[in-house]
């Protein structure tokens, strides 16, 4: 019984795999109805399923597969041409087979479903084609023993008759009328039997040519038979050649060089390799300490072997992304049919490999994106034609490796995202405030689709738009350490770009020390390291009202003390060295001050127990070379703890992108300055690229504006007080300038005086309708206006954003 179970399980696994391929092939076939190879492959798959389920006793499944197979055989013979109804019916058959397979998996029987209608439809279709009455039976080609000549000895004939179908269809249970099909399936391949015989030196090229000519001039027999007759070849040799051919095909394909391995086993192997890596790290440390050359050599060897082993075991878990993609042509076909669209799928980089767990994790998000693109992105043929585009839409999927990550792009050439509609919807659902909305750039607006509870669909279709949407996609992708970004151009299309790590199990990390403990920082988050010594520390780290910052190439980098962020009390004796680890968290950069930077190391990520899971500062733990445990920092979590980015992810995102929009009660770091004679104003420090002083003598004019030469570029200046219509104060020299940068473009805001930098809970007391400010707040017991940088610039330097966008597009 267990052997039977085993057989059924294998059958299921194999069939599922085949069906997935079938979906793709069916769509290919629809485009290229003449593609014999695809047809033959589809035929073989269905035939295999039919044969095996007959053998296992699933009669209902067998009957459905049988009519499908018959229809396919007529298509392959060219007696029927593939068309839309046929494709649909065949896909319906594939679905039915799939349904029955899952029934078998669940209950052990092929279920109670009624498929007579489908069977009738398929039968009608195969008859409808050219008026030929029945399923092919009694056609001349039926011969019980296919390849060898009739003169063969009985045992050889038996071998041959099973060898040929096996070669053709990879199964062992041909039943009744199917044998004809087996023969035909083998037909396309059998020409190559000549090559095999030729290679074995049994025949000459001339023999083959002659046989082929004979076949061409109407000889109905198969190549092997003709050869047996002409070249006085012994039929046993043909049989042997058939075996050889079978094997060759196996090498080229999958049969003989591949074995099925349980994923659980691979996971265990991966864990063991993880252990080995750790043990290796330990041995390496001992070896370094002991200074024994023999040990060192052995350790070196161990090191190499372990590394290689690790790579290869990781490879076993790698799968081409094509495995997930393969079902998309079908998905696209179904969705586009259901909403009356015509969409072609183009794929690039199908071979790009990813860890299996990641493949699993991105399957659903990708499917969602694809459905969305077809449903919402690509227009109907009429609309497309009206817009001067080809009636057929294109969905382009592209995957490629870049810097230890995998990038996946899904682009459609549809209508693009209507940002007005997005904005209206976001406002309607209270996802953003009108103030925020007014300040969001096109790109930022587009990214609003990732907010929870957002759905752009004007009407809810059964395809998408049910409210569970892109936010889930985003969450799922972020869960595996990936990012997703969308860009869109009205009328041209939408592109989603996903970046995900190759693997999750073993990652390169930077090991740092803090308060005598070691912590690992995933290298994905790492940008650079800065080391300050001696009096540099005093000079370069500026303490702004409790918020330390460092000028990193002119940009203010907020600094976070790791020991404080982790509430470590150990007063580590501050030496004359400060190590800053510059990190990237959710679009923001910040510097993490640690006591010591140790080394980079491949670490094996282990989860934390449930008592510790809720601590957002840690992503897991790992075991270091000396056998001790070290915690892996969750850079995003640390950033949130330290208020580098605000605590809730989504508002944080908007906050980060809206630059200058501030929700009430948001704790933020602000630059205070005076503008005009007595106006106190504030802008978020995050908007400030640099603070500069210029002598009035440096001022020059370009167009109708003031500019200065700055870092080899021309920096336009705007005098804030004048723009805001305030009384100008005394002429100051030098000028105090707040440099604001956006996507590589900079502009200088001339202010009266820089006052301070504060971290405050900003409560907007009064929302202002006056242009140029967002409202007023009490900061340091003084009423302070919050400057609306973007608003001011849009008003007074309208070219700035467009140029910035251009610049951004170029870089």
């Amino acid at each position: 019984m267990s052997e039977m179970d085993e057989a059924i399980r294998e059958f299921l696994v194999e069939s599922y795999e085949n069906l997935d391929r079938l979906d793709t092939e069916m769509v290919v076939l629809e485009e290229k109805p003449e593609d014999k190879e695809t047809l033959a492959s589809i035929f073989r798959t269905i035939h295999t399923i039919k044969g095996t389920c007959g053998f296992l006793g699933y009669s209902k499944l067998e009957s459905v597969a049988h009519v499908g197979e018959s229809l396919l055989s007529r298509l392959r013979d060219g007696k029927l041409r593939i068309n839309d109804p046929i494709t649909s019916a065949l896909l319906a058959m594939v679905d039915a087979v799939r349904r029955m397979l899952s029934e078998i998996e669940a209950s052990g029987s092929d279920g109670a479903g009624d498929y007579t209608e489908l069977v009738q439809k398929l039968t009608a279709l195969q008859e409808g084609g050219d008026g030929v009455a029945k399923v092919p039976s009694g056609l001349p080609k039926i011969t019980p023993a296919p390849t060898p000549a009739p003169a063969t000895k009985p045992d050889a004939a038996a071998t041959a008759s099973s060898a040929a179908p096996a070669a053709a269809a990879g199964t062992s249970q041909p039943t009744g009328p199917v044998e004809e099909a087996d023969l035909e399936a083998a037909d396309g391949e059998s020409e190559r039997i000549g090559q095999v015989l030729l290679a074995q030196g049994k025949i000459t090229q001339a023999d083959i040519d002659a046989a082929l000519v004979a076949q061409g001039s109407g000889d109905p027999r198969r190549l092997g038979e003709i050869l047996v007759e002409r070249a006085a070849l012994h039929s046993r040799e043909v049989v042997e050649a058939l075996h050889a051919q079978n094997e060759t095909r196996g090498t080229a394909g999958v049969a003989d060089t591949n074995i099925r391995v349980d994923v659980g086993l691979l996971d265990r192997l991966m864990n063991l390799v993880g252990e080995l890596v750790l043990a290796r790290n330990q041995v390496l440390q001992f070896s370094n300490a002991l200074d024994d050359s023999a040990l060192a050599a052995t350790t070196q060897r161990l090191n190499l072997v372990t590394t290689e082993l690790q790579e290869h075991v990781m490879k076993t878990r790698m799968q081409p992304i094509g495995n997930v993609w393969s079902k998309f042509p079908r998905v696209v076909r179904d969705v586009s049919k259901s909403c009356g669209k015509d969409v072609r799928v183009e794929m690039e980089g199908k071979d790009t490999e990813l860890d299996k767990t990641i493949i699993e994790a991105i399957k659903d998000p990708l499917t969602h994106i694809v459905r969305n693109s077809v449903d919402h992105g690509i227009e109907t043929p009429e609309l497309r034609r009206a817009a001067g585009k080809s009636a057929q839409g294109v969905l382009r999927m592209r995957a490629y490796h870049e810097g230890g990550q995998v990038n996946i792009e899904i682009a459609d050439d549809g209508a693009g995202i209507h940002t007005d509609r997005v904005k209206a919807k976001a406002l309607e659902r209270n996802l953003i405030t009108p103030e925020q909305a007014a300040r969001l750039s096109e790109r930022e607006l587009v990214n609003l689709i990732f907010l929870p509870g957002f759905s752009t669909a004007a009407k809810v279709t059964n395809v998408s738009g049910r409210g569970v949407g892109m936010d889930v996609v985003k969450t799922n992708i972020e869960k595996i350490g990936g990012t997703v970004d969308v860009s869109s151009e009205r009328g041209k299309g939408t592109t989603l770009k996903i970046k995900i790590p190759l693997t999750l199990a073993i990652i390169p990390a930077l090991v740092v020390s803090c308060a005598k403990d070691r912590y690992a920082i995933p290298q994905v988050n790492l940008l650079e390291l800065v080391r300050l010594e001696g009096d540099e520390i005093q000079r370069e780290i500026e303490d702004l009202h409790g918020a330390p910052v460092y000028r990193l190439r002119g940009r203010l980098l907020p600094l976070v003390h790791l020991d404080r962020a982790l509430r470590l009390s150990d007063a580590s004796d501050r030496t004359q060295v400060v190590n800053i680890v510059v990190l990237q968290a959710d679009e923001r950069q910040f510097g993490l001050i640690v006591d010591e930077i140790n080394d980079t190391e491949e670490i094996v990520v282990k989860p934390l127990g449930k008592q510790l899971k809720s601590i957002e500062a840690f992503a897991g733990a790992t075991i270091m070379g000396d056998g001790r445990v070290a915690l892996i920092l969750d850079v995003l979590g640390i950033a949130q703890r330290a208020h580098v980015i605000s605590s809730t992810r989504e508002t944080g995102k908007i906050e980060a992108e809206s630059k200058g929009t501030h929700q009430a009660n948001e704790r933020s770091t602000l630059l205070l300055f005076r503008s005009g004679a007595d106006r106190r104003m504030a802008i978020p420090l995050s908007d400030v690229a640099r603070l500069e002083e210029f002598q009035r003598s440096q001022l020059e004019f370009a167009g109708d504006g003031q500019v200065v030469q700055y870092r080899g570029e021309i920096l336009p200046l705007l005098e804030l007080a004048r723009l805001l219509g305030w009384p100008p104060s005394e002429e100051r020299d030098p000028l105090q300038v707040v440099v604001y940068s956006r996507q590589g473009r900079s502009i200088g805001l001339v202010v009266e005086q820089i006052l301070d930098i504060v971290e405050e809970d900003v409560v907007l007391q009064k929302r202002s309708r006056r242009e140029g400010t967002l409202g007023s707040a009490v900061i340091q017991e003084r009423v302070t206006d919050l400057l609306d940088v973007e608003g001011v610039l849009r008003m007074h330097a309208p070219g700035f954003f467009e140029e910035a966008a251009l610049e951004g597009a170029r870089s």
Partner: protein
Amino acid sequence: MSDREQFCTFHLGQLFLGVRVQDVQEVIRYQDLTRVPLAPATVRGLINLRGQIVTAIDLRKRFGLPDRSAESLPMNVVVRTDDGPVSLLVDEIGDVLEVSGDLWEAPPETLSDDARALVRGVYKLEGRLLLELDGVRALEPVAAS
């Protein structure tokens, strides 16, 4: 309740406690601990148990007892849970005792609330009392310090 049960016993201050042997994976001597900042106070740190990372819960903290002196190192009683093994840090390991269910009694009302929550019952052994530890409760975190 007349079945006999085997308990892995250990000492914690004045307390004599036991966990059912089938819940215990192993008992090991003191291991280097890596402290976990921001963790609940009961979590003393993480240990490396042959490549597996195991959270160590200090039962003294859990029972509200004073910390042990710096020179006395705790022992690890590694218990199995649904979430993988967890280590309980105790003062000293006792014997494995087989006790009769007849000797069991619910913990007296007078036991402090802290302790009552963690003790399933008491076995009245000759000359001493064995407290049966509620393994699930013992692992629950208490608020961070």
